[in-house]
């Protein structure tokens, strides 16, 4: 599994440590890992597709914005992420363009667990180590 959960940060909440061969893989897996906190992902189907475009000044800011966007879509669009394909490009600013596929929240079909309220800035980091990327995020539940 490209991500592991950790409870070493706070008794009330959950953290995630993610690795990826590319930064896109890391972003994608972090969002899927976060979704796994909210819902048992094995029951999710592809019933809805969305596009997300974001831009930030740093990779860390983009990571925060991306995870926050997935939380936002859960409440505003009833959307639960199952897959995503994305591209991140660095220019004057860093741009992300992602195609998301997933399901609409349905308590009849889904094992809904606990809501993620927000991404915190606590220990939020993303770094390239040799040939892979590593990231960490802690969520307020």
């Amino acid at each position, binding site marked *: 599994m490209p991500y592991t959960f950790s409870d070493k940060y*706070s*008794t009330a909440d959950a953290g995630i440590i993610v690795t990826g061969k590319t930064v896109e893989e890391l972003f994608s897996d972090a969002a899927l890992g976060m979704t796994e906190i909210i819902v048992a992902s094995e029951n999710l189907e592809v019933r809805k597709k969305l596009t997300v475009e974001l831009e930030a000044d740093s990779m860390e800011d983009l990571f925060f914005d991306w995870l926050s966007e997935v939380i936002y879509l859960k*409440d505003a669009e009833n959307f639960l992420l199952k897959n995503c394909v994305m591209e991140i490009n660095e220019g004057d600013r860093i741009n992300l363009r992602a195609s998301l596929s997933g399901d609409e929240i349905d308590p009849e079909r889904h094992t809904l667990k606990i809501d993620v309220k927000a991404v915190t*800035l606590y220990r939020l980091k993303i770094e390239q180590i040799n040939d892979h990327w590593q990231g960490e995020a802690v969520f307020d*539940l």
Partner: protein
Amino acid sequence: MINERFIRISNNIWEIPIDFKDGMRVPARILSSPRLIDGIDSKVIDQITNVACLPGIRRYALCMPDGHMGYGFPIGGVAAFSISDGVISPGGIGFDINCGMRLMRTNLTLGELKPKMEELLNRLFRTIPSGVGSKGFLTLDRKNFSRIMEEGAEWCRRNGYASDTDIERIEDHGRLPHADHTTVSEKAVSRGINQMGTLGSGNHYLEVEIARPENIYDREIARRFGIDRDNQVLIAIHCGSRGFGHQIATDYLKIFARSVQKYGLEVRDKELMSAPIESDEGKRYASAMACAANAAFVNRQLIVSGIRQVFREVFRKSDSELGIETIYDVAHNIAKFEKYTIDGREETVLVHRKGATRSFGPGKAEIPEIYRPVGQPVIVGGSMETGSALLCGTSMADNETFGSSLHGAGRTMSRMKAKKTIRGDKVKQRMTERGILVKTAYMPGLAEEASFAYKDIDLVVDAVDALQISKKVARFNPILNIKG
């Protein structure tokens, strides 16, 4: 975790001196008890001393006896900031703005409830939306949602969801006056507009509780609060502003990351991102936070409206026969402009309470007239297995803790560890054996909220009673619980 540099001020107060950490502007005070102090995490010490470094902080950075690690401020953190040179920080309020407690009284007793317990639980579970993705029964347009943001609980009264007594007995009458809907993002509106009247998940709950005569510590005050018969049925609600407040906190955390640079503020933790109270960014956040606080008051009031409907149907009695009335509604994640005497001079400060409850003592004009002789009700949520507690505010809190007290039992064990320790169905079985019926959308979540994952509520309540920042009135035992 006691450090040799801490100064023992009294049996229940440990002071961390100003020279403990570079940059501290005031001492920090840990309010606790000899039995609880060793359980204080070193992260709490680090966080509360970081708070003591923030610009414009007055007197002390305080941590209540239920304190545990949060983000920025610890949960249980209280700090007051000067308006002229102080800051406002989302990390001192929390992501769930105006998470709080509502306590309701009824005319019912345990004997009347018992034959209807299962039916009542099922009907409440069906009527009050809870868990991930739950939507409220109201279809709100943007105009009405903006009114909710600015009018708070008054919107509920105008639309038939609240009585005059409800409004009178909500902190600030359920309306922070400086709310301005133009300070709130479209994203926050989209997240929150369909969630009014929902519990949410995690540690949020709706509970039916019993006031057993042996657990009434002060009969006179209890009677004034409406607890006037043996084995009386009460209703407690714990929830906040839902996705609306979470998004406002997220939005302003990002805005404040720029403010910190713009205004040259030094913060020791990214979660303490702040802005000067009098800056444009600070004022806008204060207004947006007030919108979320008002929405949270509405959220709890709409839940109350649903509960009343269920009780009417299950017991086939009218509202006046049932006597379901608000005892009080308190915010425990909020920042408020309040006046205190500091260094012999009256000063308006911005009091941040994060996992802390206002505890105004007798005589304060801000509390309902009927409670003014005894102080405001302070509602303390415990774990779902142990029930809640009712206290009243004191003059000591007004003088020593910026009118603040504890908010709950305080978590001590992580959710992951709790789930490894016990299964949710075992917790349910254990509760059933003790006469508590529970219903949840997610059974393993019961394990996360098991009583052993929290401090002993009686110990934290005894600590604030000994500190005289709140006075014990009663303890309630849970009998029905809906876990969000």
